[in-house]
């Protein structure tokens, strides 16, 4: 029967799609992605507001605060979205009282006349907020420098002329390294839960058939090779669908945030990731099928799947933190390349041909893994009475005259 694998694959998909655990896991993952995007977007758009006290008559301080509040003198701090409100109080005692009853977050004074020290002071009941301190520091420095400049018969702009340093990335990539790191983390996570989740499902479905000897009935009806192919294709289809769904949710979510400017770069990355993952998952599924066939009972699965689990966990940990040369190397080594290459595409580090070469390496590795797995699966599946090792599975008589 040529199309037996289709019957098998259809069953795998239907059974999985109706599995409550699978659906709940998927819903939780979608919620997590949504939450992550929501949190990022909140952090991006968050505005902090402060009330800063100034004593009547301290005109320098009042001017500095007003210009800071207008955002005029503090170009460098404008990213932080700090909002200032000036609270005018009568004297130092009133300022301290305002700090104490929290009607003011800080108190700015411009010199010796008020606090007894020579220079500017930003006081707070506790240490003033660092964003606020930075904003005021910058504003005050600009204001004082402007004063000195005018005393010296020149202007600020004359003094600072030609001193700006602009940054420029030669690769022209606009993506913030922090976003790249975040994306690397998300891809590594998607890879890990996709591979382990679907892998465990396929191992479970193999041992279910082996333990119940149902596989003996199936084996007399269809070649084991077709059974394995159906399982791999079925669970790969599920894993692909799951990742498309998650990637879609992620990209739609991103489009509502400030990150939407880099949506094209992210979309390219996601497409590469989905392609890499789909190819790589075929190998993962095949290896998990072997892990299932090596067990003799469901309880054995945690032993037989643990080497795979370690591998995937290792990939997860190494890939999301890798950068530089390590990342470049990993982007060619399956299965790490499934995560590392798309991340390199995102940070603009990969030349156009690099993902293609890495994909070829992945395809070759997958073909190898599937051929190896097919042999081990057939060797182990009919062996009952205890766990089977890879070695005996490979040396096994391939079970049966049914063979392929």
């Amino acid at each position, binding site marked *: 029967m040529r199309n037996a694998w289709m019957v098998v694959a259809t069953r795998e998909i239907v059974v999985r799609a109706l599995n409550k655990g699978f659906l709940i896991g998927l819903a939780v993952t979608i919620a997590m992605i949504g939450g992550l995007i929501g949190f990022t977007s909140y952090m991006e758009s968050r505005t902090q507001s402060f009330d800063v006290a100034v004593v009547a008559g301290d005109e320098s301080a009042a001017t500095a605060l007003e210009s800071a509040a207008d955002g005029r003198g503090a170009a460098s701090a404008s990213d932080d979205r700090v909002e200032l409100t000036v609270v005018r109080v009568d004297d130092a005692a009133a300022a301290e009282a305002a700090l104490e009853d929290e009607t003011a977050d800080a108190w700015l004074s411009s010199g010796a006349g008020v606090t007894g020290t020579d220079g500017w002071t930003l006081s707070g009941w506790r240490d003033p907020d660092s964003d606020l301190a930075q904003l005021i520091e910058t504003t005050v420095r600009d204001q004082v420098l402007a004063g000195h400049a005018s005393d010296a018969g020149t202007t600020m702009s004359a003094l600072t002329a030609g001193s700006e340093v602009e940054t420029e990335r030669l690769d022209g990539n606009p993506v913030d390294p922090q976003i790249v790191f975040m994306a690397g983390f998300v891809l590594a996570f998607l890879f890990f839960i996709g591979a382990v989740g679907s892998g465990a499902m396929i191992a479970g479905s193999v041992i279910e*058939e082996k333990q119940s000897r149902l596989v003996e*009935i199936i084996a007399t009806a269809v070649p084991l090779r077709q059974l394995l192919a159906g399982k791999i294709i079925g669970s790969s289809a599920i894993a692909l669908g799951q990742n498309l769904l998650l990637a879609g949710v992620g990209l739609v979510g991103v489009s509502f945030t400030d990150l939407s400017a880099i949506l094209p770069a992210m979309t390219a990355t996601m497409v590469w990731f989905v392609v890499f993952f789909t190819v790589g998952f075929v190998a993962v599924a095949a290896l998990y099928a072997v892990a299932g066939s090596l067990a003799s009972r469901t309880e054995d699965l945690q032993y037989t799947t643990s080497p795979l689990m370690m591998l995937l966990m290792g990939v997860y940990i190494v890939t999301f933190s890798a950068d530089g040369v390590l990342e470049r190397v990993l982007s060619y080594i399956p299965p790490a390349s499934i995560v590392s290459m798309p991340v390199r595409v995102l940070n603009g580090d990969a030349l156009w041909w690099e993902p293609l070469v890495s994909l070829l390496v992945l395809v070759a590795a997958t073909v190898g893994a599937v051929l190896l797995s097919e042999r081990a699966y057939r060797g182990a599946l009919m062996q009952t009475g205890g766990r089977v090792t890879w070695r005996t599975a490979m040396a096994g008589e391939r079970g049966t005259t049914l063979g392929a």
Partner: protein
Amino acid sequence: MSDLEVRDLTRVFVSGGTPRRAVDGAGFTASSGLLTGFVGSNGAGKTTTMRMIMGVLAITSGEVLFDGAPVTRQDRREFGYMPEERGLYPKQPVLDQLVYLARLRGIAASAARREVLEHLDRLGLADRAKEHVEKLSLGNQQRVQIVAAVMGQPKALVLDEPFSGLDPAAVDAMVDLLREHTRRGVPVLFSSHQLDLVERLCERLVILGGGRVLANGSPDELRAQGVTRHRLILSGDAGFVRGVPGVLAVDVDGPSALVEVRDDGAATRLLSAALERGAVHEFSPVRPTLAQIYREMTAQAGAEPQAHADEETV
């Protein structure tokens, strides 16, 4: 005629470096249209033989023939098989998984559905079709399993312990079902521990011990191989039978004696002696039951050292 024949079938397991012959040159035929019972003690090699017939276990030497030719993959696809350990997908509805198994055997989805429903109806499971298998009782799971084996008009049936765990009514229903298939000319081979059942049902019987076929034939033929004893009931005491030449007294109890007649003249001598002493109420042959024959045969086979414990360790 499409007999299922096993010829000189041998399976050697190597465990711990020592080879062990689980099945040792077994040969027999499950004839077309007949129920053939396959009996033997635990570890006699029944399951191993059946797995080799179905091709789920490699054959060390010997062959399996169907319809006179070596069995092919296509033949086996059309055999109905019930493995030793019962199992189905516990979390899938009965109907869905039977249809799935039927489709794997190449039956179209709609035809599979129709046939499955028909069989479930016959076995009284029509209202359980949508239930998960794990919710069914063991007996009902067994019925579902038999449906899996008989779907799609199989060309032969190989059933490992199909009656274990069934109540008498379920046994009868299943026998009716199997008879339907033998009427189509299909050979049915089934293993069982229940000798009385086998004796009642089977046209043919194969007794396996230590991996070898100890006996093979119809129940009557097998019984004829055993020693026939006679029951003698007299009006007086039967103690004298111990002194009659050529007669072995197995058991004497007052006027009744169970004897083994060792030569042709002995019966005449015994009866003459009995009539001299009074009336003879009964002198009748006592045919051995299959269970007796089976016990004698397996006791002989059991004298050979055999390690059966790890039969399933391949």
